[in-house]
Protein backbone atom coordinates (compact mmCIF):
# COMPACT_ATOMS: atom_id res chain seq x y z
CA UNK A 1 0.00 0.00 0.00
CA UNK A 2 1.16 3.48 -0.67
CA UNK A 3 0.56 6.78 1.03
CA UNK A 4 -1.41 9.06 -1.23
CA UNK A 5 -0.52 12.70 -1.54
CA UNK A 6 -3.38 14.94 -0.72
CA UNK A 7 -4.70 16.61 -3.80
CA UNK A 8 -7.49 19.13 -3.99
CA UNK A 9 -8.54 18.25 -7.49
CA UNK A 10 -9.00 14.63 -6.52
CA UNK A 11 -10.96 15.61 -3.45
CA UNK A 12 -13.29 17.86 -5.42
CA UNK A 13 -13.76 15.15 -8.06
CA UNK A 14 -14.63 12.57 -5.41
CA UNK A 15 -17.13 14.86 -3.72
CA UNK A 16 -18.69 15.62 -7.09
CA UNK A 17 -19.06 11.91 -7.91
CA UNK A 18 -20.63 11.19 -4.52
CA UNK A 19 -23.03 14.12 -4.70
CA UNK A 20 -24.02 13.07 -8.21
CA UNK A 21 -24.61 9.47 -7.04
CA UNK A 22 -26.70 10.63 -4.10
CA UNK A 23 -28.86 13.03 -6.12
CA UNK A 24 -29.35 10.55 -8.90
CA UNK A 25 -30.68 7.84 -6.58
CA UNK A 26 -32.70 10.37 -4.56
CA UNK A 27 -34.24 11.61 -7.79
CA UNK A 28 -35.02 8.06 -8.88
CA UNK A 29 -36.69 7.33 -5.54
CA UNK A 30 -38.80 10.49 -5.40
CA UNK A 31 -39.98 10.14 -8.98
CA UNK A 32 -40.57 6.41 -8.33
CA UNK A 33 -38.34 5.53 -11.21
CA UNK A 34 -36.86 3.03 -8.80
CA UNK A 35 -39.58 0.60 -7.76
CA UNK A 36 -40.11 -0.26 -4.13
CA UNK A 37 -38.53 -3.69 -4.65
CA UNK A 38 -35.27 -2.18 -5.86
CA UNK A 39 -35.37 0.48 -3.17
CA UNK A 40 -35.58 -2.18 -0.44
CA UNK A 41 -32.66 -4.03 -1.98
CA UNK A 42 -30.64 -0.86 -2.32
CA UNK A 43 -31.23 -0.10 1.34
CA UNK A 44 -30.31 -3.60 2.54
CA UNK A 45 -27.23 -3.25 0.37
CA UNK A 46 -26.16 -0.16 2.32
CA UNK A 47 -26.84 -1.84 5.66
CA UNK A 48 -24.90 -4.92 4.55
CA UNK A 49 -22.00 -2.77 3.38
CA UNK A 50 -21.80 -1.14 6.83
CA UNK A 51 -21.93 -4.56 8.50
CA UNK A 52 -19.40 -6.21 6.21
CA UNK A 53 -16.92 -3.33 6.30
CA UNK A 54 -17.10 -3.08 10.09
CA UNK A 55 -16.75 -6.83 10.60
CA UNK A 56 -13.86 -6.79 8.15
CA UNK A 57 -12.08 -4.34 10.43
CA UNK A 58 -12.22 -6.95 13.22
CA UNK A 59 -11.85 -10.18 11.23
CA UNK A 60 -9.79 -9.02 8.30
CA UNK A 61 -7.51 -6.23 9.46
CA UNK A 62 -7.11 -7.17 13.12
CA UNK A 63 -7.25 -10.89 12.41
CA UNK A 64 -9.54 -11.62 15.37
CA UNK A 65 -12.33 -13.90 14.17
CA UNK A 66 -15.55 -12.61 15.69
CA UNK A 67 -18.80 -14.50 15.22
CA UNK A 68 -20.97 -12.20 17.30
CA UNK A 69 -21.50 -9.27 14.98
CA UNK A 70 -25.27 -9.73 14.87
CA UNK A 71 -25.32 -9.29 18.65
CA UNK A 72 -23.98 -5.74 18.34
CA UNK A 73 -26.44 -5.09 15.56
CA UNK A 74 -29.19 -6.23 17.94
CA UNK A 75 -27.97 -3.86 20.65
CA UNK A 76 -28.03 -0.97 18.19
CA UNK A 77 -31.45 -1.89 16.85
CA UNK A 78 -33.06 -2.23 20.26
CA UNK A 79 -31.47 0.86 21.81
CA UNK A 80 -32.44 3.05 18.86
CA UNK A 81 -36.00 1.74 18.90
CA UNK A 82 -36.28 2.38 22.64
CA UNK A 83 -35.13 5.93 22.00
CA UNK A 84 -37.50 6.71 19.14
CA UNK A 85 -40.44 4.44 19.81
CA UNK A 86 -40.60 4.39 23.61
CA UNK A 87 -39.07 7.71 24.59
CA UNK A 88 -40.18 9.72 21.55
CA UNK A 89 -36.78 11.18 20.88
CA UNK A 90 -35.66 12.21 17.38
CA UNK A 91 -34.05 9.64 15.10
CA UNK A 92 -30.61 11.19 15.37
CA UNK A 93 -30.64 10.62 19.14
CA UNK A 94 -31.63 7.01 18.53
CA UNK A 95 -28.81 6.49 16.04
CA UNK A 96 -26.19 8.07 18.28
CA UNK A 97 -27.41 6.13 21.30
CA UNK A 98 -27.32 2.95 19.23
CA UNK A 99 -23.70 3.59 18.23
CA UNK A 100 -22.70 4.36 21.80
CA UNK A 101 -24.51 1.38 23.29
CA UNK A 102 -23.07 -1.02 20.73
CA UNK A 103 -19.58 0.41 21.25
CA UNK A 104 -20.01 -0.02 24.99
CA UNK A 105 -21.20 -3.61 24.47
CA UNK A 106 -18.18 -4.14 22.25
CA UNK A 107 -15.93 -2.81 24.97
CA UNK A 108 -17.49 -4.93 27.73
CA UNK A 109 -17.29 -8.06 25.58
CA UNK A 110 -13.97 -7.23 23.94
CA UNK A 111 -11.87 -6.59 27.03
CA UNK A 112 -12.22 -10.08 28.51
CA UNK A 113 -12.58 -12.13 25.30
CA UNK A 114 -9.81 -10.59 23.23
CA UNK A 115 -7.29 -12.28 25.48
CA UNK A 116 -8.37 -15.47 23.76
CA UNK A 117 -6.90 -16.51 20.45
CA UNK A 118 -8.16 -17.91 17.18
CA UNK A 119 -10.91 -20.46 17.43
CA UNK A 120 -11.50 -19.91 21.15
CA UNK A 121 -12.21 -16.25 20.47
CA UNK A 122 -14.56 -17.20 17.66
CA UNK A 123 -16.59 -19.42 19.95
CA UNK A 124 -16.58 -16.92 22.83
CA UNK A 125 -17.89 -14.12 20.59
CA UNK A 126 -20.49 -16.50 19.18
CA UNK A 127 -21.49 -17.22 22.78
CA UNK A 128 -21.76 -13.54 23.66
CA UNK A 129 -23.83 -12.87 20.55
CA UNK A 130 -26.24 -15.61 21.57
CA UNK A 131 -26.33 -14.36 25.17
CA UNK A 132 -27.36 -10.90 23.94
CA UNK A 133 -30.16 -12.54 21.99
CA UNK A 134 -31.36 -14.69 24.89
CA UNK A 135 -31.26 -11.72 27.29
CA UNK A 136 -33.36 -9.67 24.85
CA UNK A 137 -35.82 -12.55 24.67
CA UNK A 138 -36.28 -12.35 28.42
CA UNK A 139 -36.83 -8.60 28.74
CA UNK A 140 -40.54 -7.85 28.68
CA UNK A 141 -40.00 -4.11 28.17
CA UNK A 142 -38.81 -4.80 24.62
CA UNK A 143 -41.49 -7.39 23.90
CA UNK A 144 -39.63 -10.58 24.79
CA UNK A 145 -39.42 -13.23 22.05
CA UNK A 146 -41.99 -11.49 19.84
CA UNK A 147 -39.98 -8.25 19.71
CA UNK A 148 -41.20 -4.75 18.87
CA UNK A 149 -43.62 -4.07 16.06
CA UNK A 150 -44.83 -0.92 14.36
CA UNK A 151 -41.54 0.95 14.34
CA UNK A 152 -41.81 4.21 12.49
CA UNK A 153 -39.99 4.20 9.17
CA UNK A 154 -37.34 6.85 9.68
CA UNK A 155 -34.45 5.42 7.68
CA UNK A 156 -34.29 7.34 4.44
CA UNK A 157 -31.91 7.12 1.53
CA UNK A 158 -30.13 10.19 2.89
CA UNK A 159 -29.49 8.49 6.21
CA UNK A 160 -28.31 5.30 4.55
CA UNK A 161 -26.05 7.10 2.11
CA UNK A 162 -24.50 9.27 4.81
CA UNK A 163 -24.04 6.35 7.21
CA UNK A 164 -22.43 4.13 4.60
CA UNK A 165 -20.17 6.95 3.53
CA UNK A 166 -19.13 7.79 7.10
CA UNK A 167 -18.43 4.11 7.84
CA UNK A 168 -16.26 3.80 4.75
CA UNK A 169 -14.38 7.05 5.36
CA UNK A 170 -13.71 6.26 9.02
CA UNK A 171 -12.58 2.71 8.41
CA UNK A 172 -10.47 3.40 5.32
CA UNK A 173 -8.73 6.30 7.04
CA UNK A 174 -8.29 4.31 10.23
CA UNK A 175 -6.64 1.47 8.37
CA UNK A 176 -4.32 3.87 6.55
CA UNK A 177 -3.36 5.71 9.73
CA UNK A 178 -0.65 4.74 12.19
CA UNK A 179 -3.37 3.08 14.29
CA UNK A 180 -4.24 1.00 11.27
CA UNK A 181 -0.62 -0.06 10.79
CA UNK A 182 -0.58 -1.17 14.42
CA UNK A 183 -3.81 -3.10 13.93
CA UNK A 184 -2.44 -4.85 10.85
CA UNK A 185 0.77 -5.69 12.69
CA UNK A 186 -1.31 -7.46 15.34
CA UNK A 187 -2.82 -9.61 12.59
CA UNK A 188 0.50 -10.38 10.95
CA UNK A 189 2.35 -11.43 14.09
CA UNK A 190 1.11 -10.63 17.53
CA UNK A 191 4.33 -11.50 19.34
CA UNK A 192 6.47 -9.45 16.95
CA UNK A 193 4.06 -6.51 17.24
CA UNK A 194 4.32 -6.67 21.00
CA UNK A 195 8.10 -6.69 20.78
CA UNK A 196 7.95 -3.55 18.66
CA UNK A 197 6.24 -1.82 21.56
CA UNK A 198 2.66 -2.04 20.32
CA UNK A 199 0.08 -2.50 23.02
CA UNK A 200 -1.70 -5.31 21.19
CA UNK A 201 -4.63 -5.61 23.60
CA UNK A 202 -5.37 -1.90 23.27
CA UNK A 203 -5.44 -2.02 19.48
CA UNK A 204 -7.48 -5.21 19.41
CA UNK A 205 -10.08 -3.72 21.75
CA UNK A 206 -10.07 -0.48 19.76
CA UNK A 207 -10.78 -2.28 16.49
CA UNK A 208 -13.42 -4.39 18.19
CA UNK A 209 -15.19 -1.36 19.69
CA UNK A 210 -15.17 0.56 16.41
CA UNK A 211 -16.45 -2.50 14.54
CA UNK A 212 -19.20 -2.97 17.12
CA UNK A 213 -20.15 0.69 16.93
CA UNK A 214 -20.81 0.52 13.21
CA UNK A 215 -22.73 -2.72 13.65
CA UNK A 216 -24.91 -0.77 16.09
CA UNK A 217 -25.38 1.93 13.47
CA UNK A 218 -26.45 -0.72 10.95
CA UNK A 219 -28.83 -2.14 13.54
CA UNK A 220 -30.47 1.25 14.11
CA UNK A 221 -30.91 1.78 10.36
CA UNK A 222 -32.25 -1.75 9.96
CA UNK A 223 -34.79 -1.41 12.77
CA UNK A 224 -36.18 1.84 11.38
CA UNK A 225 -36.56 0.48 7.92
CA UNK A 226 -38.20 -2.91 8.38
CA UNK A 227 -40.96 -1.96 10.90
CA UNK A 228 -40.26 -4.90 13.19
CA UNK A 229 -37.38 -6.26 15.23
CA UNK A 230 -37.26 -9.44 17.23
CA UNK A 231 -34.39 -11.23 18.94
CA UNK A 232 -34.40 -14.14 16.48
CA UNK A 233 -33.50 -11.84 13.59
CA UNK A 234 -30.11 -11.33 15.21
CA UNK A 235 -29.12 -14.94 15.83
CA UNK A 236 -25.78 -16.38 14.83
CA UNK A 237 -26.99 -17.15 11.32
CA UNK A 238 -27.09 -13.38 10.79
CA UNK A 239 -23.49 -13.21 11.99
CA UNK A 240 -22.62 -15.98 9.53
CA UNK A 241 -24.32 -13.98 6.74
CA UNK A 242 -21.96 -11.09 7.43
CA UNK A 243 -19.03 -13.49 7.72
CA UNK A 244 -19.80 -14.89 4.26
CA UNK A 245 -19.51 -11.38 2.82
CA UNK A 246 -16.20 -10.73 4.54
CA UNK A 247 -14.73 -14.10 3.59
CA UNK A 248 -15.86 -13.81 0.00
CA UNK A 249 -14.59 -10.27 -0.40
CA UNK A 250 -11.24 -11.01 1.15
CA UNK A 251 -10.16 -10.79 4.79
CA UNK A 252 -8.54 -7.40 4.94
CA UNK A 253 -9.94 -5.65 1.90
CA UNK A 254 -12.51 -2.90 2.41
CA UNK A 255 -13.39 -2.67 -1.27
CA UNK A 256 -13.63 -6.46 -1.30
CA UNK A 257 -16.13 -6.32 1.56
CA UNK A 258 -18.17 -3.70 -0.28
CA UNK A 259 -18.23 -5.73 -3.50
CA UNK A 260 -19.11 -8.92 -1.65
CA UNK A 261 -21.87 -7.16 0.32
CA UNK A 262 -23.38 -5.89 -2.92
CA UNK A 263 -23.07 -9.32 -4.54
CA UNK A 264 -24.53 -11.23 -1.57
CA UNK A 265 -27.45 -8.80 -1.21
CA UNK A 266 -28.26 -9.22 -4.89
CA UNK A 267 -27.99 -12.99 -4.54
CA UNK A 268 -30.26 -12.95 -1.49
CA UNK A 269 -32.82 -10.86 -3.33
CA UNK A 270 -32.71 -13.15 -6.35
CA UNK A 271 -33.18 -16.27 -4.21
CA UNK A 272 -35.81 -14.77 -1.93
CA UNK A 273 -38.31 -17.53 -2.58
CA UNK A 274 -35.73 -20.30 -2.11
CA UNK A 275 -34.21 -19.68 1.34
CA UNK A 276 -32.77 -23.20 1.61
CA UNK A 277 -30.91 -22.90 -1.69
CA UNK A 278 -29.57 -19.52 -0.60
CA UNK A 279 -28.10 -21.05 2.55
CA UNK A 280 -26.68 -24.01 0.60
CA UNK A 281 -24.99 -21.52 -1.72
CA UNK A 282 -23.60 -19.61 1.26
CA UNK A 283 -22.21 -22.85 2.64
CA UNK A 284 -20.60 -23.73 -0.67
CA UNK A 285 -19.14 -20.23 -0.96
CA UNK A 286 -17.51 -20.59 2.46
CA UNK A 287 -16.09 -24.04 1.72
CA UNK A 288 -14.93 -23.40 -1.82
CA UNK A 289 -13.41 -19.99 -1.07
CA UNK A 290 -11.51 -21.42 1.89
CA UNK A 291 -10.16 -24.38 -0.08
CA UNK A 292 -9.28 -22.67 -3.35
CA UNK A 293 -8.80 -19.02 -2.45
CA UNK A 294 -8.42 -18.65 1.31
CA UNK A 295 -7.53 -14.97 0.98
CA UNK A 296 -10.93 -14.22 -0.61
CA UNK A 297 -11.65 -12.69 -3.98
CA UNK A 298 -9.66 -9.52 -3.39
CA UNK A 299 -7.10 -10.87 -0.94
CA UNK A 300 -5.87 -7.90 1.03
CA UNK A 301 -5.69 -5.73 -2.07
CA UNK A 302 -7.85 -2.68 -2.49
CA UNK A 303 -9.53 -1.61 -5.64
CA UNK A 304 -8.72 2.03 -6.20
CA UNK A 305 -8.51 4.56 -8.95
CA UNK A 306 -5.44 2.80 -10.31
CA UNK A 307 -7.27 -0.47 -10.86
CA UNK A 308 -10.10 1.34 -12.54
CA UNK A 309 -7.70 3.30 -14.69
CA UNK A 310 -5.98 0.10 -15.70
CA UNK A 311 -9.26 -1.56 -16.59
CA UNK A 312 -10.31 1.53 -18.50
CA UNK A 313 -7.17 2.41 -20.37
CA UNK A 314 -5.42 -0.94 -20.48
CA UNK A 315 -2.10 0.55 -19.37
CA UNK A 316 -0.27 0.41 -16.11
Amino acid at each position, binding site marked *: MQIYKHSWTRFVAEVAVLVALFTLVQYAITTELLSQYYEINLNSMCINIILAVSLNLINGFTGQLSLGHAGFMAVGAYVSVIMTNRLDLPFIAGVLAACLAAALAGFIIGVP*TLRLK*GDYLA*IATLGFGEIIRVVLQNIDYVGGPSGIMGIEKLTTWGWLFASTLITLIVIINLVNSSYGRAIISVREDEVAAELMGINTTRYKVMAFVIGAMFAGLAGALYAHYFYIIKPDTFNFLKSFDILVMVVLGGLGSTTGAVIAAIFITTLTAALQSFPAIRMILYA*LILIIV*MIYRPQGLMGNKEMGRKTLARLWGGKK
Partner: protein
Amino acid sequence: MQEFTQQMINGLSLGAIYALIALGYTMVYGIIKLINFAHGDIMMVGAYVGFFSLSVLGTNILSAMVFAMLACAIIGVFIEKIAYKPLRNSTRIAALITAIGVSLFLEYATLFALGPAQRVFPETAFQVTNYHFMGIMVSNKDLFVFFSAVVLMIILQYIIKMTKTGKAMRAVSEDQEAAVLMGISVDKTVSITFAIGSSLAAAAGVMIGVYYNTVNPLMGIIPGLKAFVAAVLGGIGIIPGAMVGGFLMGILETMVSGYSSSLYRDAVAFGVLILILLIKPTGLFGKNTGEKV
Protein backbone atom coordinates in the same frame (compact mmCIF):
# COMPACT_ATOMS: atom_id res chain seq x y z
CA MET B 1 -34.23 -33.00 48.06
CA GLN B 2 -36.60 -35.23 46.14
CA GLU B 3 -36.91 -32.57 43.47
CA PHE B 4 -33.13 -32.28 43.38
CA THR B 5 -32.65 -36.02 42.89
CA GLN B 6 -35.27 -36.02 40.17
CA GLN B 7 -33.51 -33.20 38.31
CA MET B 8 -30.23 -35.02 38.79
CA ILE B 9 -31.60 -38.14 37.11
CA ASN B 10 -33.01 -36.12 34.21
CA GLY B 11 -29.67 -34.37 33.97
CA LEU B 12 -27.74 -37.60 33.81
CA SER B 13 -29.51 -38.90 30.73
CA LEU B 14 -29.30 -35.54 28.95
CA GLY B 15 -25.69 -35.29 30.04
CA ALA B 16 -24.94 -38.71 28.57
CA ILE B 17 -26.12 -37.43 25.19
CA TYR B 18 -23.99 -34.30 25.45
CA ALA B 19 -21.01 -36.38 26.53
CA LEU B 20 -21.32 -38.59 23.43
CA ILE B 21 -21.38 -35.56 21.13
CA ALA B 22 -18.60 -33.85 23.08
CA LEU B 23 -16.39 -36.92 22.60
CA GLY B 24 -16.50 -36.42 18.84
CA TYR B 25 -15.53 -32.76 19.17
CA THR B 26 -12.71 -33.55 21.50
CA MET B 27 -11.29 -36.43 19.45
CA VAL B 28 -11.24 -34.40 16.26
CA TYR B 29 -9.76 -31.38 18.03
CA GLY B 30 -7.15 -33.53 19.70
CA ILE B 31 -5.99 -34.92 16.40
CA ILE B 32 -6.16 -32.06 13.88
CA LYS B 33 -6.84 -28.99 16.09
CA LEU B 34 -10.09 -28.27 14.31
CA ILE B 35 -13.36 -27.29 15.95
CA ASN B 36 -15.62 -29.41 13.82
CA PHE B 37 -18.57 -27.07 13.74
CA ALA B 38 -20.52 -29.55 11.66
CA HIS B 39 -20.45 -32.18 14.39
CA GLY B 40 -23.90 -31.26 15.74
CA ASP B 41 -25.28 -31.54 12.24
CA ILE B 42 -23.79 -34.99 11.79
CA MET B 43 -25.78 -35.84 14.89
CA MET B 44 -28.87 -34.50 13.14
CA VAL B 45 -28.17 -36.68 10.09
CA GLY B 46 -27.81 -39.64 12.46
CA ALA B 47 -31.16 -38.84 14.03
CA TYR B 48 -32.75 -38.80 10.57
CA VAL B 49 -31.17 -42.10 9.55
CA GLY B 50 -32.48 -43.57 12.80
CA PHE B 51 -35.90 -42.06 12.16
CA PHE B 52 -36.17 -43.50 8.64
CA SER B 53 -34.86 -46.84 9.73
CA LEU B 54 -37.58 -46.99 12.40
CA SER B 55 -40.44 -45.63 10.35
CA VAL B 56 -39.67 -46.93 6.84
CA LEU B 57 -37.73 -50.12 7.47
CA GLY B 58 -39.52 -50.85 10.72
CA THR B 59 -36.43 -51.96 12.57
CA ASN B 60 -36.12 -51.88 16.33
CA ILE B 61 -34.34 -49.07 18.11
CA LEU B 62 -30.99 -50.83 18.49
CA SER B 63 -30.57 -51.67 14.83
CA ALA B 64 -31.73 -48.15 13.98
CA MET B 65 -28.88 -46.90 16.10
CA VAL B 66 -26.40 -49.21 14.38
CA PHE B 67 -27.60 -48.08 10.94
CA ALA B 68 -27.28 -44.44 11.96
CA MET B 69 -23.78 -45.01 13.30
CA LEU B 70 -22.63 -46.74 10.12
CA ALA B 71 -24.15 -44.12 7.85
CA CYS B 72 -22.65 -41.24 9.81
CA ALA B 73 -19.23 -42.88 10.01
CA ILE B 74 -19.20 -42.91 6.22
CA ILE B 75 -20.49 -39.33 5.98
CA GLY B 76 -17.95 -38.16 8.53
CA VAL B 77 -15.03 -39.66 6.60
CA PHE B 78 -16.43 -38.25 3.38
CA ILE B 79 -16.66 -34.72 4.82
CA GLU B 80 -13.14 -34.95 6.16
CA LYS B 81 -11.74 -36.03 2.79
CA ILE B 82 -13.57 -33.35 0.79
CA ALA B 83 -13.64 -30.31 3.04
CA TYR B 84 -11.04 -30.57 5.77
CA LYS B 85 -8.15 -32.50 4.24
CA PRO B 86 -7.18 -29.83 1.69
CA LEU B 87 -6.96 -27.37 4.56
CA ARG B 88 -4.82 -29.39 6.91
CA ASN B 89 -1.84 -27.11 6.48
CA SER B 90 -3.67 -23.80 6.32
CA THR B 91 -4.61 -21.54 9.22
CA ARG B 92 -6.98 -22.74 11.90
CA ILE B 93 -9.32 -19.86 11.12
CA ALA B 94 -9.63 -21.05 7.51
CA ALA B 95 -10.46 -24.54 8.74
CA LEU B 96 -13.01 -23.16 11.20
CA ILE B 97 -14.74 -21.12 8.50
CA THR B 98 -14.88 -24.24 6.32
CA ALA B 99 -16.41 -26.16 9.21
CA ILE B 100 -19.08 -23.46 9.55
CA GLY B 101 -19.71 -23.89 5.81
CA VAL B 102 -20.05 -27.67 6.15
CA SER B 103 -22.43 -27.16 9.05
CA LEU B 104 -24.67 -24.79 7.09
CA PHE B 105 -24.52 -27.15 4.12
CA LEU B 106 -25.70 -30.18 6.10
CA GLU B 107 -28.49 -28.20 7.75
CA TYR B 108 -29.90 -26.62 4.65
CA ALA B 109 -29.31 -29.55 2.30
CA THR B 110 -31.41 -31.64 4.71
CA LEU B 111 -33.96 -28.86 4.95
CA PHE B 112 -34.12 -28.65 1.18
CA ALA B 113 -34.38 -32.40 0.70
CA LEU B 114 -36.77 -33.28 3.52
CA GLY B 115 -38.61 -30.05 4.22
CA PRO B 116 -38.48 -27.91 7.33
CA ALA B 117 -41.27 -29.77 9.13
CA GLN B 118 -40.62 -31.48 12.41
CA ARG B 119 -41.09 -35.26 12.32
CA VAL B 120 -42.28 -37.29 15.26
CA PHE B 121 -40.47 -40.47 16.19
CA PRO B 122 -42.80 -43.47 15.76
CA GLU B 123 -44.35 -44.34 19.09
CA THR B 124 -44.09 -48.05 18.48
CA ALA B 125 -40.31 -47.74 18.33
CA PHE B 126 -40.00 -47.15 22.01
CA GLN B 127 -42.68 -47.99 24.56
CA VAL B 128 -42.22 -45.57 27.43
CA THR B 129 -42.82 -46.96 30.89
CA ASN B 130 -42.25 -44.99 34.04
CA TYR B 131 -40.93 -46.56 37.20
CA HIS B 132 -41.69 -44.89 40.53
CA PHE B 133 -39.87 -45.43 43.72
CA MET B 134 -39.52 -43.19 46.76
CA GLY B 135 -41.32 -40.41 44.90
CA ILE B 136 -38.80 -40.31 42.09
CA MET B 137 -39.78 -41.09 38.54
CA VAL B 138 -37.39 -42.86 36.21
CA SER B 139 -38.53 -43.79 32.73
CA ASN B 140 -37.03 -46.56 30.67
CA LYS B 141 -36.24 -43.82 28.15
CA ASP B 142 -33.76 -42.29 30.61
CA LEU B 143 -32.32 -45.72 31.42
CA PHE B 144 -31.95 -46.60 27.75
CA VAL B 145 -30.18 -43.35 26.94
CA PHE B 146 -27.92 -43.47 29.94
CA PHE B 147 -26.85 -47.11 29.65
CA SER B 148 -26.34 -47.18 25.91
CA ALA B 149 -24.20 -44.05 26.23
CA VAL B 150 -22.13 -45.64 28.98
CA VAL B 151 -21.67 -48.82 26.93
CA LEU B 152 -20.50 -46.77 23.95
CA MET B 153 -18.08 -44.85 26.13
CA ILE B 154 -16.62 -48.08 27.48
CA ILE B 155 -16.18 -49.39 23.92
CA LEU B 156 -14.50 -46.11 22.98
CA GLN B 157 -12.14 -46.32 25.95
CA TYR B 158 -11.28 -49.90 24.94
CA ILE B 159 -10.54 -48.84 21.36
CA ILE B 160 -8.36 -45.94 22.43
CA LYS B 161 -6.47 -47.64 25.21
CA MET B 162 -6.15 -51.27 24.06
CA THR B 163 -6.07 -51.44 20.29
CA LYS B 164 -3.39 -50.57 17.79
CA THR B 165 -5.67 -48.05 16.09
CA GLY B 166 -6.17 -46.31 19.41
CA LYS B 167 -2.47 -46.21 19.96
CA ALA B 168 -2.04 -44.62 16.52
CA MET B 169 -4.69 -42.04 17.37
CA ARG B 170 -2.98 -41.13 20.60
CA ALA B 171 0.37 -40.92 18.82
CA VAL B 172 -0.93 -38.61 16.08
CA SER B 173 -2.55 -36.28 18.59
CA GLU B 174 0.64 -36.19 20.63
CA ASP B 175 3.04 -35.40 17.82
CA GLN B 176 1.99 -35.72 14.21
CA GLU B 177 5.47 -35.61 12.70
CA ALA B 178 6.92 -38.15 15.07
CA ALA B 179 3.95 -40.41 14.40
CA VAL B 180 4.67 -40.26 10.67
CA LEU B 181 8.28 -41.21 11.34
CA MET B 182 7.08 -44.22 13.32
CA GLY B 183 5.23 -45.43 10.24
CA ILE B 184 1.74 -44.36 11.24
CA SER B 185 -0.49 -43.21 8.39
CA VAL B 186 -1.85 -39.86 9.53
CA ASP B 187 -4.53 -39.76 6.84
CA LYS B 188 -5.86 -43.14 7.85
CA THR B 189 -5.81 -42.28 11.54
CA VAL B 190 -7.62 -39.00 10.98
CA SER B 191 -10.25 -40.83 8.91
CA ILE B 192 -10.77 -43.38 11.66
CA THR B 193 -11.10 -40.59 14.21
CA PHE B 194 -13.77 -38.91 12.12
CA ALA B 195 -15.54 -42.25 11.64
CA ILE B 196 -15.61 -42.98 15.37
CA GLY B 197 -16.54 -39.43 16.36
CA SER B 198 -19.33 -39.24 13.79
CA SER B 199 -20.76 -42.60 14.76
CA LEU B 200 -20.89 -41.52 18.41
CA ALA B 201 -22.71 -38.38 17.28
CA ALA B 202 -25.14 -40.53 15.29
CA ALA B 203 -25.87 -42.65 18.35
CA ALA B 204 -26.47 -39.43 20.29
CA GLY B 205 -28.78 -38.29 17.48
CA VAL B 206 -30.96 -41.38 17.79
CA MET B 207 -30.98 -40.90 21.56
CA ILE B 208 -32.09 -37.29 21.18
CA GLY B 209 -34.81 -38.55 18.87
CA VAL B 210 -35.96 -40.92 21.62
CA TYR B 211 -35.49 -38.30 24.33
CA TYR B 212 -37.34 -35.38 22.72
CA ASN B 213 -39.43 -37.56 20.39
CA THR B 214 -38.91 -35.30 17.36
CA VAL B 215 -36.37 -34.65 14.63
CA ASN B 216 -35.93 -31.57 12.45
CA PRO B 217 -33.16 -30.32 10.14
CA LEU B 218 -31.91 -27.66 12.54
CA MET B 219 -32.00 -29.82 15.67
CA GLY B 220 -28.22 -30.25 15.65
CA ILE B 221 -27.28 -26.63 16.23
CA ILE B 222 -28.06 -26.12 19.90
CA PRO B 223 -27.07 -29.57 21.24
CA GLY B 224 -23.96 -29.30 19.08
CA LEU B 225 -22.99 -25.98 20.64
CA LYS B 226 -23.73 -27.26 24.14
CA ALA B 227 -21.68 -30.37 23.58
CA PHE B 228 -18.90 -28.15 22.34
CA VAL B 229 -19.12 -26.17 25.58
CA ALA B 230 -18.98 -29.49 27.42
CA ALA B 231 -15.81 -30.42 25.54
CA VAL B 232 -14.22 -27.07 26.38
CA LEU B 233 -15.36 -27.38 29.98
CA GLY B 234 -13.60 -30.71 30.35
CA GLY B 235 -10.56 -29.55 28.41
CA ILE B 236 -10.78 -29.88 24.65
CA GLY B 237 -8.69 -32.73 23.31
CA ILE B 238 -8.98 -34.72 26.55
CA ILE B 239 -11.33 -37.68 26.32
CA PRO B 240 -12.27 -38.18 30.00
CA GLY B 241 -12.75 -34.40 30.15
CA ALA B 242 -15.42 -34.56 27.45
CA MET B 243 -17.34 -37.23 29.36
CA VAL B 244 -17.27 -35.31 32.64
CA GLY B 245 -18.01 -32.02 30.87
CA GLY B 246 -20.99 -33.58 29.08
CA PHE B 247 -22.53 -34.87 32.29
CA LEU B 248 -21.91 -31.55 34.05
CA MET B 249 -23.58 -29.61 31.23
CA GLY B 250 -26.58 -31.94 31.23
CA ILE B 251 -27.06 -31.65 34.98
CA LEU B 252 -26.56 -27.89 34.92
CA GLU B 253 -29.11 -27.49 32.17
CA THR B 254 -31.83 -29.50 33.89
CA MET B 255 -31.12 -27.68 37.15
CA VAL B 256 -31.47 -24.28 35.48
CA SER B 257 -34.65 -25.17 33.63
CA GLY B 258 -35.98 -26.91 36.75
CA TYR B 259 -35.34 -24.09 39.19
CA SER B 260 -35.58 -20.95 37.03
CA SER B 261 -36.74 -19.93 33.55
CA SER B 262 -36.23 -22.52 30.85
CA LEU B 263 -35.65 -19.63 28.43
CA TYR B 264 -32.34 -19.05 30.13
CA ARG B 265 -31.03 -22.56 29.73
CA ASP B 266 -29.37 -21.84 26.39
CA ALA B 267 -27.75 -18.70 27.79
CA VAL B 268 -26.35 -20.68 30.71
CA ALA B 269 -24.40 -22.95 28.39
CA PHE B 270 -22.71 -19.95 26.81
CA GLY B 271 -22.19 -18.33 30.19
CA VAL B 272 -20.33 -21.45 31.31
CA LEU B 273 -18.28 -21.35 28.14
CA ILE B 274 -17.24 -17.76 28.64
CA LEU B 275 -16.44 -18.26 32.31
CA ILE B 276 -14.30 -21.30 31.59
CA LEU B 277 -12.54 -19.56 28.71
CA LEU B 278 -11.74 -16.59 30.93
CA ILE B 279 -10.75 -18.46 34.06
CA LYS B 280 -9.14 -21.63 32.77
CA PRO B 281 -9.16 -21.87 28.96
CA THR B 282 -7.54 -25.29 29.03
CA GLY B 283 -10.59 -26.73 30.81
CA LEU B 284 -11.03 -28.65 34.03
CA PHE B 285 -8.66 -31.45 33.05
CA GLY B 286 -6.24 -29.39 30.98
CA LYS B 287 -2.63 -28.71 31.73
CA ASN B 288 -1.29 -25.21 31.28
CA THR B 289 1.16 -24.98 28.44
CA GLY B 290 2.86 -21.73 27.62
CA GLU B 291 2.77 -20.40 24.11
CA LYS B 292 5.95 -21.03 22.18
CA VAL B 293 7.27 -18.45 19.78
